[in-house]
């Protein structure tokens, strides 16, 4: 197939499925908490709505930067889709994209000049600690599979069986990472409701639309990476089922746990990472 077409199709799929999954997650959470909750396509409609709304810019914002950062966020997640489902390139690259996404998050908050955004920005710096489990996962996968290439990792799994069973602790650490990315989770300190909408507070219209698109793609990509790296070669329906199941689990956890204080949230993730690293190394030795 034409590469360009392939990329476009994949980006569209990522956006569509990602936003449906986020909607589904909110629905499940609401049901667990005994509320009717929004419809499943709410997040998708919400995103589309922002594209036909008027865009306004705060007087206090750091100008070209404030706009550019939303575009950057969108571009890097498109790059992630290209590196992931389209070409099955380097896993390291996806993690680099993930870290840049953190930077985007951080600065979308601080560039607006709003105190809520600023608070979210400071918390984003705190939550940079969430990368420790990320790198631990990376290292453990490399130690086990001996490669950083997604297609080689898939090959490895089709021969040796899914990595989920050989390095379960790494999978758990990655799951914690996914959890920290989802809204309303105990680790989602940058988007906690105590600071209104966190870094998105002062983004309106088109800019908010871009932020929400990248949020949906990010969610899809994280689930995709988890399924690909830990469960090996999957068929399309299997991907779909896996994503729904993961979203449901995340929704369940989010519905029953409170949000942690920023410092505790960070240290909790770091502690998870240390336990995970130590445990995995012990498991690899045996």
């Amino acid at each position: 197939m034409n590469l360009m077409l392939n990329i476009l199709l994949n980006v569209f799929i990522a956006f569509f499925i990602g936003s449906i999954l986020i909607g589904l997650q909110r629905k499940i959470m609401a049901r667990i908490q005994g509320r009717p909750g929004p419809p499943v396509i709410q997040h998708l409609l919400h995103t589309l709505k922002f594209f036909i709304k008027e865009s306004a810019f705060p007087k206090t914002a750091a100008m070209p930067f404030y706009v550019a950062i939303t575009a950057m966020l969108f571009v890097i997640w498109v790059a992630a889709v290209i590196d992931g489902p389209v070409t099955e390139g380097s896993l390291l690259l996806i993690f680099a994209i993930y870290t840049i996404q953190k930077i985007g998050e951080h600065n979308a908050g601080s560039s607006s000049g709003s105190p809520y955004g600023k608070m979210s920005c400071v918390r984003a710096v705190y939550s940079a600690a969430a990368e420790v489990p990320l790198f631990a996962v990376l290292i453990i996968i490399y130690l086990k599979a001996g490669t950083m290439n997604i297609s080689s990792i898939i090959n490895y799994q089709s021969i040796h069986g899914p990595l989920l069973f050989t390095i379960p602790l790494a999978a758990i650490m990655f799951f914690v990472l996914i959890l920290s990315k989802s809204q309303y989770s105990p680790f989602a300190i940058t988007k906690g409701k105590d600071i209104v909408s966190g870094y998105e507070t002062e983004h309106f219209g088109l800019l908010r639309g871009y932020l929400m698109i990248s949020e949906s793609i990010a969610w899809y990509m994280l689930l995709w990476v988890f399924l690909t790296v830990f469960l090996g070669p999957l068929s399309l329906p299997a991907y779909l089922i896996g994503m729904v199941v993961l979203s449901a689990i995340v929704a369940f956890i989010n519905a029953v746990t409170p949000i942690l204080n920023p410092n505790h949230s960070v240290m909790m993730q770091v502690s998870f990472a240390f336990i995970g690293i130590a445990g995995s190394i012990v498991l690899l030795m045996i």
Partner: protein
Amino acid sequence: MVVSILGSQIIGIIPLGDIVFYMTSFNLFMFAAALVFTFIIAISKTETQIEAEFGSLGDREIKVAKKEFKFRRFLAIICGLATAGAMVTGDLFDFTLFVCLIGIVNIGIVGAVKQVDVLDSAFQYGLIAMIASTPLFVGASLILAATGTISILAINSLTYTTPMMLFGSILLFLGVAGETGVAPFFATKAEMFRTPGSPFLLIIHLSSLLIIVRVIEILLIINKPF
């Protein structure tokens, strides 16, 4: 000659004598990202922070003064360039020097502010950066002593890992962790972000995250599990 690093092929090299810069798609992406962000920062204004005034209903604006703005922008651009360089350098010692440059520029970016709290965390961060330069250079020199080379490309073609290399790379990682302020040493850094001037603060965060990703790549190259 086809050389592959961690499964991805080298796109090109830039030899500057013994110091060889190499690029894989991963390095290239991060290099480009650092440069793009630097460019955006160079053309941006700073934001204005609005704070509620104590004891009345008025607001108070906190702005970055013109002179301070120019100074911090200069340092931010240097920091961005240094980050971009650290992404593609193929020499261990060169990498440590890039990290040191980033560390000192980061201190400078927040050192020019007036809030006492921010200055205090800048100072504490500076202390860590100073202590961290020791494990950084010691790590690099232990790897040099164990392998006889500090070129990452040459280390990549070695087939063994000795305990000394492992020790050296752990020290290297600790050094980078201190110099860039990741968990659990993040507190000094987070406090520094309370000051206005977001485009410049971005580069502090950007540099530390990209450096950490890069150092992971380097550690994986040095230590071969097989």
